[in-house]
């Protein structure tokens, strides 16, 4: 640590704050970011690089920062990888450095540097093969990664806000402000998003004059006017994605998740005015703490009142460095030298404002600043941090210099932040005068402004912004007067000469760091080129250039420029790698939004849900529904309870909640014909007051679903679907109604939630109902035949009584209004029919060979399920045509069968595969369902077994190696119990 440098107050507040970094207590000021506070405390070492674990300090002052990433918080609630530059200091903040052991100062893994030359680009593709990658991987994984994985996270729900505007402006720098003002004046509705907590961009330190005022006054007046014009200004908010025309913006105030907002912004047009990112110049040891971007030093001074060092050397390739130097001098730092990589061709002589520049240089010289033109910093010297800069003239023959300093500020120019992937094409073009890429094709809907168009000086940026705002407003239909463009004067135009890296002997290139986070050096690019990775996309993937958490902000463009130099090609040909959204990393909790935890999806509850929950029903998800598997009162565990409930139904009776069944009403003069098309078998032959079990096919001939179809009237049917398929079947019916029956008088209406369904099953069901429903129901109950239904009233509400059974017992479905469901259920329960859950239902239906989704799994045809008669009786129903395909008639196709253990005792489980014997052959089938039947006293199964093996009496092996069972089983009829259905037809 060096002595704390000079400190003034921050712009954003006053007062002091206490925080800790790596266990040590520090004091910062209100308005500080973590980086500025640490800088002000003389802390330089803030991180370690990923690969070599080299010591790293701050490079930047914003989202480009690759080095200073902290873990924030305490054990229970850690947020890893927080950029110190983005993190607003708050009282009591606990910060930890990352990716080092045992400490930031002493990191044993930094010994890896000793093997530096071994670990060049792609080294891991060439080794770690013996004996296997897996033997190295655990260690490599521990060495990699950045912050620790959090142990807990209890972030509050982020806010979501939907905005609609004519023009979305991203970036509230000079260009963005001018654009917003012009468009707003023209009458357009504007949303202006600024990533930083403050508007103004580089006006923060550039302090030019605009429309006759100093820039601070202009900015204040400007924000007042934007407010008056109704412009929605969102600071600390970044537009992160263009979701096919809907923009996603993310606000994480203070750089730490906690009060985040996701904006979904619908805009007629978008103006990208995100400014530019300063590029470093690469030289040997440029990763030492103390080498920073020049603009970052200006920001630390202007916003936080923090000097980045005491003795500075500036290294740049443009004129703006001189203005910067002047401001840093005024800020109390000593500028030892300005190293200007340009030759005399770039001197100010003959330029319109050349005199101003000359006088600036003069005053700098007077202040003791040495100006070394046509020179470059070639090496940063120092062990733990910068101690000196070695400077060499670029022309041969000059003398090398060594200037002591604690900080080297570099500026290689600016790369427009292109928002490439927020703009469909992401088209860009090389601008040699910038050494970078500017936006190319633009439409009225995606307009770039300011730096993105290469307008780097204040005046040009603002007039470009004004033009963009005017154009966008017009495109959005706003026709007002956008006023005249702001007249601005700021720093001299940069007059930049592209200069990406200093001369360096080959061996030194291993210390010329391009991507600081991933330790990608110039030497790595050479390796990549030697190996034929010459396209920028290949180089990026092979060397990991620009894939760090800064998303290449500090490295991508300069890396491409150096690649161009090494290839001897124009940067225009090399291009830049395609960046991927989001434009800035987005916190996962923000992306998840409201849909998190219990709210990840809706929960569908039947009208009896609360009763089940209050009476020991064990509710489990079934699709989006919650359904009771069993009731605790029935037995000590799930299996016992299910057996007891099933036994009770057969012996006496029980009630079950089947409200989850899908219920679709099909009505209209051609309803019957429509259903004849939608189902296998004929709905048109069902008599009014009767129902029929029916099966629908998917387009490819597989069974889609089954259920009962009730004919309510000549032109009205109720089709029930299985619980899991209700939503799907509704869409499916509606699809064919629209596609083929729209002109033919059949409508589809979803009544799933309009009716609760209580099943009363068992020998006592009829007598209990008779006792309960009252005199009006006695006749119908006595006369109702199997599959008949009747309608009436109960407790003043509609009740439909359908005699149908999914248990094999005499059973009734009571379709009632949800409002009376609980009352009816309680009355049935009080009358002695106790509830049974899904597990008991499963036992009962397997005993009878009834099918559920285990059998109707989308892979079975009706022929597989023994429905030949239905197929033959149908004519041209949906899916039938493709049943003729030969594969569906082969002997290897499955057939639904019943299974019992050969010894009548052994258990076997659904999911077992069936083979013809115990040899490890290809299976000939599998068990779809299995239950222990309390009625029959043994395990029963349903299976799909190859037809050639499916003869009743045949024995096959149930192979269940997963659960360690091998059970010989006998093929029987799928109807295990009461094959004549005498019990349900009484």
């Amino acid at each position: 640590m060096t002595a704390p440098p000079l400190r003034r107050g921050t712009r954003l507040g006053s007062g002091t704050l206490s925080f800790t970094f790596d266990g040590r207590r520090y004091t910062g000021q209100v308005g500080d970011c973590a980086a500025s506070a640490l800088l002000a405390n003389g802390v330089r070492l803030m991180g370690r690089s990923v690969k070599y674990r080299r010591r790293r300090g701050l490079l930047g002052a914003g989202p480009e920062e690759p080095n200073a990433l902290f873990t924030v918080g305490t054990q229970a609630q850690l947020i890893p990888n927080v950029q110190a530059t983005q993190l607003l200091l708050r009282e009591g903040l606990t910060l930890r450095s990352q990716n080092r052991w045992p400490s930031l100062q002493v990191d044993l893994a930094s010994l890896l540097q000793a093997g530096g030359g071994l670990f060049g680009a792609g080294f891991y593709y060439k080794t770690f093969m013996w004996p296997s990658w897996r033997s190295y991987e655990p260690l490599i994984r521990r060495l990699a990664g950045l912050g620790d994985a959090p142990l807990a996270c209890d972030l509050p729900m982020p806010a979501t806000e939907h905005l609609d505007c004519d023009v979305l402006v991203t970036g509230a720098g000079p260009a963005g402000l001018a654009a917003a003002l012009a468009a707003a004046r023209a009458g357009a509705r504007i949303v202006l998003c600024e990533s930083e907590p403050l508007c103004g961009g580089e006006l923060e330190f550039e302090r030019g004059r605009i429309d006759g005022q100093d820039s601070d006054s202009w900015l204040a007046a400007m924000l007042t006017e934007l407010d008056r014009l109704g412009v929605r200004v969102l600071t600390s908010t970044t537009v992160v994605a263009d979701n096919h025309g809907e923009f996603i913006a993310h606000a994480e105030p203070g750089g730490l998740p906690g009060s985040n907002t996701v904006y979904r912004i619908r805009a007629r047009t978008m103006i990208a005015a995100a400014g530019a990112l300063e590029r470093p110049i690469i030289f040997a040891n440029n990763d030492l703490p103390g080498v920073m971007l020049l603009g970052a030093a200006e920001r630390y001074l202007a916003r936080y009142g923090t000097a980045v060092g005491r003795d500075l050397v500036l290294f740049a390739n443009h004129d703006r460095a001189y203005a910067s130097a002047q401001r840093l001098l005024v800020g109390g730092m000593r500028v030892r030298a300005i190293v200007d990589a340009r030759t005399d061709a770039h001197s100010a002589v003959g330029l319109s404002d050349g005199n101003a520049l000359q006088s600036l240089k003069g005053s700098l010289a007077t202040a003791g600043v040495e100006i070394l033109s046509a020179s470059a910093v070639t090496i940063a010297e120092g062990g733990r941090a910068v101690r000196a800069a070695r400077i060499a003239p670029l022309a041969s023959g000059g003398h090398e210099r060594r200037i002591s300093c604690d900080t080297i500020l570099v500026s290689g120019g600016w790369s427009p932040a292109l928002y490439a992937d927020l703009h469909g094409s992401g088209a860009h073009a090389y601008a040699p005068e910038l050494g970078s890429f500017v936006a190319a094709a633009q439409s009225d809907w995606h307009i770039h402004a300011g730096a993105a168009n290469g307008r780097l000086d204040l005046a040009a940026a603002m007039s470009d912004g004004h033009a963009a705002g005017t154009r966008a407003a017009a495109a959005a239909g706003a026709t007002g007067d956008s006023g005249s463009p702001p007249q601005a004067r700021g720093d001299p135009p940069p007059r930049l000469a592209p200069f990406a890296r200093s001369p360096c002997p080959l061996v030194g290139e291993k210390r010329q760091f391009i991507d600081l986070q991933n330790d990608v050096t110039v030497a790595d690019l050479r390796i990549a080129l030697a190996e034929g990775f010459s396209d920028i996309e290949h180089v990026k993937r092979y060397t990991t250039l620009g894939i760090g958490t800064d998303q290449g902000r500090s490295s991508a463009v300069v890396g491409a420029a150096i690649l161009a130099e090494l290839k001897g090609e124009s940067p225009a040909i090399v291009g830049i790698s395609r960046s991927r959204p989001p434009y800035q990393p987005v916190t996962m909790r923000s992306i998840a939004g409201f849909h998190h935890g219990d709210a990840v999806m809706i929960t569908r509850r039947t009208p009896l849900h609360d009763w089940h929950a209050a009476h020991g029903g064990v509710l489990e998800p079934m699709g989006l529904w919650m359904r009771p598997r069993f009731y605790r009162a029935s037995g000590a565990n799930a299996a016992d309870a299910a057996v007891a409930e099933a036994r009770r139904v057969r012996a006496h009776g029980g009630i079950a909640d089947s409200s989850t069944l899908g219920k679709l009403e099909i009505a209209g003069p051609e309803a019957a014909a429509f259903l004849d098309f939608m189902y296998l078998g004929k709905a048109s032959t069902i008599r009014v007051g009767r129902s029929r079990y029916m099966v629908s096919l998917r387009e490819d001939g597989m069974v889609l679903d089954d259920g009962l179809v009730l004919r309510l009237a000549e032109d009205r049917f109720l089709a029930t679907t299985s619980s899991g398929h209700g939503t799907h079947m509704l869409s499916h019916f509606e699809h064919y109604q629209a596609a083929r029956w729209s002109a033919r008088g059949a409508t589809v209406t979803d009544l799933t939630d309009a009716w609760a369904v209580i099943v009363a099953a068992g020998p006592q069901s009829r007598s209990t109902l008779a006792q309960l429903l009252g005199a009006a129901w006695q006749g119908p109950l006595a006369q109702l035949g199997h599959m008949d239904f009747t309608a009436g009233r109960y407790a003043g509400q509609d009740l439909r009584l359908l005699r149908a059974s999914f248990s094999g017992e005499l059973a009734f479905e009571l379709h009632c209004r949800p409002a009376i469901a609980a009352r009816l259920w309680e009355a049935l329960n009080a009358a002695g029919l106790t509830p049974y859950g899904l597990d008991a239902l499963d036992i009962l239906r397997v005993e009878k060979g009834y099918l559920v989704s285990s059998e109707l799994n989308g892979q079975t045809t009706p022929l597989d399920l023994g429905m030949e008669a239905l197929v033959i009786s149908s004519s041209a129903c949906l899916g039938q045509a493709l049943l003729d395909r030969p594969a569906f008639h082969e002997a290897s196709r499955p057939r639904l069968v019943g299974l019992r253990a050969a010894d009548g005792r052994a258990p076997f489980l659904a999911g077992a595969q069936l083979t013809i014997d115990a040899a490890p052959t290809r299976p000939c089938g599998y068990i779809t369902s299995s239950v222990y039947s309390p009625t029959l006293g043994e395990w029963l199964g349903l299976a799909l077994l190859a037809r050639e093996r499916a003869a009743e009496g045949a024995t096959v092996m149930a192979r269940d190696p997963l659960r360690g069972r091998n059970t010989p089983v006998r093929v029987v009829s799928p109807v295990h119990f009461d094959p004549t259905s005498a019990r349900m037809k009484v």
Partner: protein
Amino acid sequence: MSTLPASARRYSAWSLLRARYAGPGYWRPLWSGRNLQPAYDVVIVGAGGHGLATAFHLVRDHGLRRVAVLEKRLVGYGNVGRNTTIVRSNYLLPENHYFYEDALRRWETLSRELNYNVMYSPRGVLDLALTNDDFPALARRGNALRLAGIDAELLDLPALERFAPELEPRRKRRFPIVGALLQRRGGTVRHDAVAWGYARAASALGVDIIEDCEVTGVRAAGGAATGVETTRGHVQAEQIVFATAGHTGTIGTMLETALPIETHLLQAMVSEPIKPLLNSVVVYVSPGHGETYICQSDRGGLVMGGHLDGFPSYTREGAWHRLEDVVRGALELFPRIGGVKILRHWAGTNDMTMDGSPIMDRLRYDNVFVNAGWCYGGFKAIPASGAAFAQFVATGTAPELIRPFRLSRFATGHLLDETGQGPFPVRL
């Protein structure tokens, strides 16, 4: 073990040491930029994983001499470099699991075979069960695998807790976790390395890999294809192989053949790197968020994917709503990473067939072959696909392993519908 010819620079720790002193000039291009020749025995269209692997095996296993791989853009720029790096063979249907098991066995030794570390990491693939009703289907699949000699284990809750405590299986969730099907040999492979490794090996064997060369048409005469039209002119070919994942539909159009394929977008995304959190690959499907599969790269990023974006697209621009779904699933699994950030998301275009399984067959002409329709499974199939397809092209007879994937199966009904989803890539 390796099959590289002597001319290629062998990779080893020793080579790294040599290079340290010799400088970058020590290294050689992985694949050479030879010039496009006017005629080849086999022209392979598409320098992705399948195309390059096919080229490699054509030369190494079948002794073909004049083989070219023509690539529209860059080696490995398509789906081989855009997927979530998962390899596994735990498919239900025998046709699929035998094929993918062949691939998995090859993955196990591929690094040494290619002398290029593709970082096969058998960290285990977990398919989570969310209710007891999920076990029969998982058991059906796992038992089928075991009978085929492929590893699979069914984990109940305590076993899952032991294997992957980081999942906190007992944590209360809207859709709770009750167990899993585990394939221990499943895991991840460094995706780019596969393209580069095969390209290097194929090039060393004499295959011409031509980048920036788009095939725009097929020239035919007398009932057979005679070559391809490219942006670099006409190239004669005895046989033509299309391995253009995601764009096979347009190849069909080029050959005037409608295919049972829709083109869809599949996204992947990665978080910023964190220290090891997740030590296996987890597939988590719930009615809540849809599907999330997630693993952690060796660099530390959580790599995630899910369902298709949901409608046909060639844009390679993933929709935000799918990103939301996948992230919701990730946070259902790991609520504690709510404060971690998503760094990048991207998308690839996928051939989605009408039964969810690939197509490896001839197309229109006897000497035109198409290796396509990979749906979600293209990356993990590469080594098996390359070897088997090369045999198909070289001998004219499809090996047993890939015969089930013929195009005619849709018409005959010999469908390979793993999930029972039917002829709709997007579930209604």
